[in-house]
């Protein structure tokens, strides 16, 4: 038993589980992909920070890095990272209504409306980033 697991006052049966259990069906696989999305998100933010770090090395180094981002390898990474990031966003916003029940006075906002609000928020936030960074 690992150290972090709680110690119960009784012995529980632990069903043996192979490390490939998540390949057994589609739902398990998608669950694991959702978890994996966080790795791509983390890799992207670190790469994003690295680009800013290179600003401190001067225009030549920064320019070379920006040029290298046009290589096939980087583009492939960004395409995969984007797919994972969008998957994270969709699963996250779909969960919002289940986690956060919104009440206005005596009225409970329907879950579908909360989900729609979360997706609208995503669109507004994305549009704001495009406006500030790209326009």
């Amino acid at each position, binding site marked *: 038993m690992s150290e972090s697991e709680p110690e119960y006052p009784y012995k529980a049966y632990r069903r043996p589980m192979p490390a490939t259990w998540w390949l057994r069906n589609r739902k398990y696989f998608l669950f694991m992909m959702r978890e994996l999305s966080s790795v791509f*998100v983390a890799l992207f933010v670190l790469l994003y920070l690295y680009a800013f770090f290179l600003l401190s090395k001067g225009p030549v180094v920064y320019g070379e890095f920006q040029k290298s981002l046009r290589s096939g390898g980087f583009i492939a990474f960004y395409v995969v990272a984007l797919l994972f990031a969008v998957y994270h966003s969709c699963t996250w916003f779909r969960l919002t209504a289940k986690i956060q029940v919104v009440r206005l006075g005596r009225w409970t906002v329907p879950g579908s409306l909360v989900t729609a609000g979360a997706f609208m928020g995503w669109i507004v936030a994305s549009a704001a980033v495009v406006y500030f960074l790209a326009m």
Partner: protein
Amino acid sequence: MYKMDKGEPFWWGMFSVGGVVAALLVPVHIFLDGLAVPIGLLRADALSYERMLALVGHPLFKVYLFVLVVLPLYHAAHRIRFSLYDLGVKEFRISMDALCYGGALVGTGVVAYVLWGLL
């Protein structure tokens, strides 16, 4: 008896806010910085040295960048920790919590150093 880990709510909270930041802001940044400029959808100078330097010179943008980079690290640390358990990985000599959350804490320090120390 089962003992509650007092740190757990904090890490869950960080996971949650990191997840919100990742969900709201990361896709559009990946698209803009990784794809739109390199494949020519946006003007090439959108990410130019002068433009980015001016942007990062603004304290509000630094705070934004700090939030954008740091919080998803905690989100990832939490998910990686539980995914490793799910894959059957047992504790290493250093605890998994220390490895995953420690990584996120080190990341926070690095981000702070880059943003306030170098730029």
